């Protein structure tokens, strides 16, 4: 019988700590597949952020540095400048990248650091128990927006892929989702492109992945997956926002 589906080499054979239906695991897999396909596992350094993905090193069979909350792009900058023959990527949540780490991400992007950033947007702070994030949707109830996010008080959800696309240093910026087979295929293509840009030394590449956090959304995995399509994608449209190959 022909084997059609295997675990990517870059992923370890371990049990996951992610909640059922969490999209972190799916994004991990796509990143690992991209690494496998470029054959870069042994020259890749991952930079883990603080959040549900902090255990990056527990899943990826690569060298990993764990960064302080929000600072992964600065840590990756230091690592890449010191070892510029390596592939360096960060993996960050929305609280990490779009709140505490806004300064670090904008400036790393603007310097055109030759790194790849994987940004998982699940509209909440997952690890700390579902508080309001900069990406939380207007009206969305969270543990710190019990009446729903109020744009007059709390501002609007930030669209990072579009925001970073404005910066000259960015080579590639795209938003993907992993809520349907079609979107997974598309996401895989985009993540590969992001890594390819770094392999080719073209500068900063950014992938925003819309993701479900069933636990903190108080939904079952199927409903949470549904929500990505019905509520998130209309506000956070999928697509490529900057691609220097097309400029």
């Amino acid at each position, binding site marked *: 019988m022909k084997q059609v589906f295997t675990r990517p080499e870059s992923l370890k054979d371990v049990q996951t700590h992610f909640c059922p239906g969490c999209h972190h695991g799916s994004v991990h897999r796509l990143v690992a597949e991209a690494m496998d396909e470029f054959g870069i596992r*042994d020259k890749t350094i991952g*930079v883990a952020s603080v959040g549900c993905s902090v255990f990056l090193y527990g899943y990826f*069979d*690569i*060298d990993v*540095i764990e960064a302080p909350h929000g*600072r992964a792009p*600065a*840590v990756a900058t230091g690592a*890449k400048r010191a070892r510029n023959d390596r592939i360096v990527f960060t993996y960050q949540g929305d609280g990490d990248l779009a709140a505490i780490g806004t300064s670090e991400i904008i400036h790393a992007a603007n310097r055109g650091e030759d790194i790849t950033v994987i940004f998982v947007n699940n509209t909440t702070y997952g690890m700390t128990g579902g508080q309001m994030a900069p990406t939380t949707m207007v009206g969305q109830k969270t543990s710190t927006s019990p009446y729903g996010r109020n744009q007059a008080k709390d501002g609007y959800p930030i669209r990072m892929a579009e925001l970073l696309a404005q910066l000259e240093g960015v080579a590639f910026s795209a938003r993907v989702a992993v809520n349907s087979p079609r979107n997974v295929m598309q996401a895989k293509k985009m993540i590969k492109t992001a890594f390819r840009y770094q392999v080719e030394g073209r500068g900063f590449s950014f992938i925003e992945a819309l993701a479900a956090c069933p636990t903190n959304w108080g939904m079952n995995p199927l409903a949470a997956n549904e929500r990505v399509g019905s509520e998130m994608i209309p506000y956070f449209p999928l697509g490529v926002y900057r691609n220097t190959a097309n400029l």
Partner: protein
Amino acid sequence: MSEKLFVKGNEAVAMAAIEAGCRYYFGYPITPQSDIPEYLSRELPPLGGEFIQAESEIGAINMLLGASATGVRAMTSSSGPGISLKQEGISYMAGSELPGVIVDIMRAGPGLGGIDASQADYFQATRGGGHGGYRIIVLAPASVQEMYDLTMRAFDLSDIYRIPAMVLADSVIGQMKESLTAHPRPKATLPAKEWAVRGRESGEPQNIVKSLYLGDGEMEAFHWKMHARYQELAEKECRWEEIETTDAALVVTAFGSTARIARTAVAMAREAGMKVGLLRPITLFPFPRQAYETISGYCKRFLTIELSTGQMVEDVRLSVARDAEVAFYGRPPGAGSLPTPEELFEQIKKQY
């Protein structure tokens, strides 16, 4: 290379970093240390190194963390307000057992304060200014030559013990020009950086640089391990300078720039026939307690002088014999000038 040069203290730090093999510098401008990034922005690129002017001190310290995690020698520098911002990263570096050199050219605080010389970052430096209970190596140069020598030493100690090291000076030492003999890097036996994250080529095992300890007892074990390392540092690496202490009835103690002025005041006292000596700590962490223990065995009077309302004096009091008396004379920044030797001589007479 053993040239005699006439340079600023800050330049000596930058030159020493290069001589020590540091090729990566990350910083953000702040007076009175900007000569360091300025020098390195000019000198590192031709050497194949990297200078990055970060978006903030937070960015800079985390770039240092990332570079250091890959096993290279790297450095950052700042002054009080910036060092405050770096504390988060310093705590993470301490928690990740990462080496790295941080230079603090102290200025007046708290808050924006001013750019006068100050020694009021002593607690912040020696107590582990960030969260979680850790220490870093702190070296206190008192001359341009020592800015050079101790910066090189900081790189070695930091690599050997896997603890971040700070060079703690003030704006007087940083800005002053003196002659410097720029000697080659001293030979030291340094451990291989097997822990470094470089990618796994050649089948090395996975390396992880992290400070998260969630397993049963892991965090406690980490703390005890580091505690033992701090004790080893205290046993092996304390440094200080003693001048005419063997017969002293009063020992003046001060670090950095104040120690220089105190040295002149002590000479004036000797001239006047008074048995006064000087004890200058060079390592502030580990603090040279044994020197105070020994001297306070026979000399019962100490006078601590600082450019603050008193911080190191606490370490002095903890280090001397119970029956020794420790007086304090402080000149917090903003007094408009440094204390004069005459002024300190008056204090010596009072305490003698």
